[in-house]
């Protein structure tokens, strides 16, 4: 395994580089699975008639449906650095509703990496930002995620 300073330098060298954009279509079935998993039976998401008469003029997805874009589908803990990476927090800003049939293009970049020494030893805190844009070029959301990797875990 590489020494610790090189891990920090390696991570910091990635700051600001954007991932290749990835586009995903918003499927009705995916929205249904999402709202069922949360027991979120809001008629704006699943009652066409109700949604059409609402200010949205049609069905929408829950704002946090953005969680589903670009997931890694990983079967095992993510150990790219030889340790588990912990999801420490998420933040989302919403600008436009997401609708079934939309094609959402998302791009992710690392915005900051810090090194800290805590109770469990040295750790790295990485903050990434993902921008979500629909097929009309409208920004629908921005997500910011904080991930922590502990040394030796």
């Amino acid at each position: 395994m590489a020494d610790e300073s090189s891990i920090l330098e390696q991570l910091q060298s990635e700051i600001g580089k954007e991932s290749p954009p990835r586009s995903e279509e918003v499927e009705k079935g995916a929205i249904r699975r999402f709202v069922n998993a949360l027991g979120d039976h809001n008629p704006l998401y699943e009652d066409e008639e109700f949604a059409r008469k609402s200010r949205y003029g049609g069905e929408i997805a829950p704002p946090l449906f953005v969680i589903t874009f670009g997931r890694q589908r990983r079967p095992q803990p993510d150990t790219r650095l030889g340790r588990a990476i912990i999801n420490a927090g998420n933040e989302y800003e919403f600008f436009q509703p997401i609708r079934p049939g939309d094609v959402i293009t998302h791009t992710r970049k690392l915005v900051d990496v810090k090194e800290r020494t805590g109770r469990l030893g040295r750790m790295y805190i990485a903050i990434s930002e993902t921008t979500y844009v629909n097929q009309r070029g409208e920004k629908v959301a921005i997500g910011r995620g904080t991930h922590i990797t502990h040394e030796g875990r």
Partner: protein
Amino acid sequence: MISKGPASEDVNVGDEIPRLVVGPITIQDLVEWCGAEEDYLNIHYDEAAAKAAGLPGCVIQGYFKCGMLGRMLTDWLGERGTLKKIAVSYRGMDFPGDTLTCCGKVTNKYVQKDENYIELEIWTENQRGEKTTPGTAVVTAPSSARR
């Protein structure tokens, strides 16, 4: 069904919004969430894998707790209110068998560009009283004249 949602005039700093009680949460719920978010990290449903990763057992996904806090907010906002921002930190673990109560309290109100903004403190609380998922939210609600 959902309500029309609150009018901004009826919301005051210090108000608690209706709580959402979820649980007891089962492994099946967590597997269903894996399917919904298409992320099958095994520490959420495979006890042996969770223990091998150094955890006391399977843990509830952070995103699941974020999703439930979002549902609490949109349930309250009803047809007319809008969720603008949500931010949560995952500070502690919750486990299958736990019941999570999602809570929110109004901390600020202001008008910007003709829109009525409301800020809230949000959190989950399990049956042991642990607030593992604190956060904040920003929403907008129409004034009663425009409802």
